[in-house]
């Protein structure tokens, strides 16, 4: 096994800059796309959660229905087909059929975001389902619109619950950017393929990228755990003292309008 470790060292010393560039590309694409994908997922989630009640006017109701069908198709289409094929169709297909020249980076961000968005939409749907309906009722009773309810009440709670899932998606993306090699993006896995394809040192090169992948994904896991902890906040509250009260609530300064009138 000694030559195995030796080979790893030689491979690394010859190609480390390639691996590092690949890792950088992987990281950039997966982070940015996961972020955009989350936004898409939340947006789609909000619309999907809109009740198609007969309360809204006929026209609005029909429009909403169509929008929902469109979004549902988007989710099913992008979730349902392999990203690598989508990449070929979007990048080369658009060029062939419509003469549309997408920049390969634009295409990369687009494809991964749109895919993540499709998965996130389902994740968000599940997350919304698991929030106590009483929360939504309370928000409605206070006069919030559906969008306000979602943005201020439901999604913040959903967000905290689906962080483990966002972690999953980010990690999936870190690995799935590999398929972007079809549109000429050099990601970490692609570097491994090139190196092992020319040197025939599959196991050595694979060990190197596994370590890099693990470093990336462990950092991501760790960061998200931190975020979870922060969102959970302090376990105990501080009793408000008169000082903070005077500052924040300013109870001295407020009087009911009706009292003022008197």
């Amino acid at each position, binding site marked *: 096994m000694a030559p195995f470790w030796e080979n790893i060292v030689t491979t690394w010393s010859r190609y480390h800059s390639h691996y590092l560039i690949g890792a950088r590309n992987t990281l950039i694409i997966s982070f940015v796309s996961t972020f955009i994908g989350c936004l898409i997922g939340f947006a789609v989630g909000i619309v999907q959660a809109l009740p198609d*009640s*007969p*309360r*809204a*006017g006929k026209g609005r109701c029909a429009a909403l229905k169509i929008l929902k069908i469109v979004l549902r198709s988007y989710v099913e289409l992008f979730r349902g087909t392999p990203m690598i094929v989508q990449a070929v169709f979007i990048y080369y297909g658009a060029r062939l059929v419509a003469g549309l020249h997408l920049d390969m980076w634009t295409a990369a961000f687009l494809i991964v975001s749109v895919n993540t968005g499709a998965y996130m939409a389902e994740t968000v749907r599940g997350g919304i389902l698991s929030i*106590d309906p*009483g*929360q939504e*009722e*309370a*928000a*409605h*009773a*206070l*006069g*919030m*619109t*559906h969008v*306000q309810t979602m943005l*201020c*009440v439901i999604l*913040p*709670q959903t967000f*905290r619950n689906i962080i483990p899932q966002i972690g999953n998606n980010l990690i999936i993306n870190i690995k799935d950017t590999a398929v972007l090699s079809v549109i000429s993006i050099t990601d970490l896995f692609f570097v491994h393929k090139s190196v092992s394809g020319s040197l025939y040192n599959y196991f050595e090169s694979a060990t190197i990228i596994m370590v890099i992948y693990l470093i990336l994904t462990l950092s991501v896991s760790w960061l998200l755990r931190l975020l979870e902890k922060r969102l959970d*906040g302090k376990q*105990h*509250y*501080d*009793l*408000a003292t008169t000082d903070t*009260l005077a500052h*924040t*609530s*300013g*109870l001295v*300064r*407020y*009087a*009911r*309008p*009706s*009292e003022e009138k008197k």
Partner: protein
Amino acid sequence: MKRTDESPLDNGVRGRIDMERTTVLTVDELSKTFGNHEVLRSVSLELKESDVVCLIGSSGSGKSTLLRCINLLEEPTAGTICFRGEPVSRSRVSLAAYRARVGMVFQNFNLFDHLNVLNNCVIAMRKVQKLDRKTAEQRAGYYLEKVGMLPFIHAKPHQLSGGQKQRAAIARALAMEPEILLFDEPTSALDPQMVQEVLAVMHALAKEGMTMLIATHEMMFAREVSTRVVFLDEGSILEEGTPEQLFSCPRHARTEEFLRGLLYRCPGEM
């Protein structure tokens, strides 16, 4: 006895505006069915400005459902609801506007789990009434102080005791300064002392002309606070009248049976 001194029945406001009071809320022939279970049967109700109406009735008689229907949190199966003379529109925008003018305290509080007490009160003021943070916090502080919740403004709901949650929920509804308040058992988790304080708040609100509809099990609270008591039985209004009338000499046998359960009737009868 305290009651006779402070009951809104006898306070100045009511006498002053008496007949010219405008109608705030009209519930007309409201019915609600869950599956094949008729929960509300043709309930009709009218609330005029500064009315304080208590809904009483046994567990499962439909009190909460009635309040929730008024707020359109449940879609009524039949019947109409008019607010200030206009039927409550079903389009989404004006529905939100209507709800903003109607305050509600839920039986199980429904505080926002991710926000502390202060932000629970502030959020709707900022998003719905578009107040700036400072004004909103001042107003929230004012009402939180009234229910004795100022020390707990930084606590999250899961860190509160039952009574504290209830008071926060009351403050949240009050802080919106709505035109009518729907209370679903607002004192169920409160100790007698706290009940007195909430009662004082409600009296003050009533004096200012606030209209209130309160579902409650505390008959003595109902007696203290209300101008009218409505007895709901199996989804229909069996009897209504002034507290004196209803508690002292109920007209229906069922009402009497229900009130017989009451441990402590009015002193005169003991």
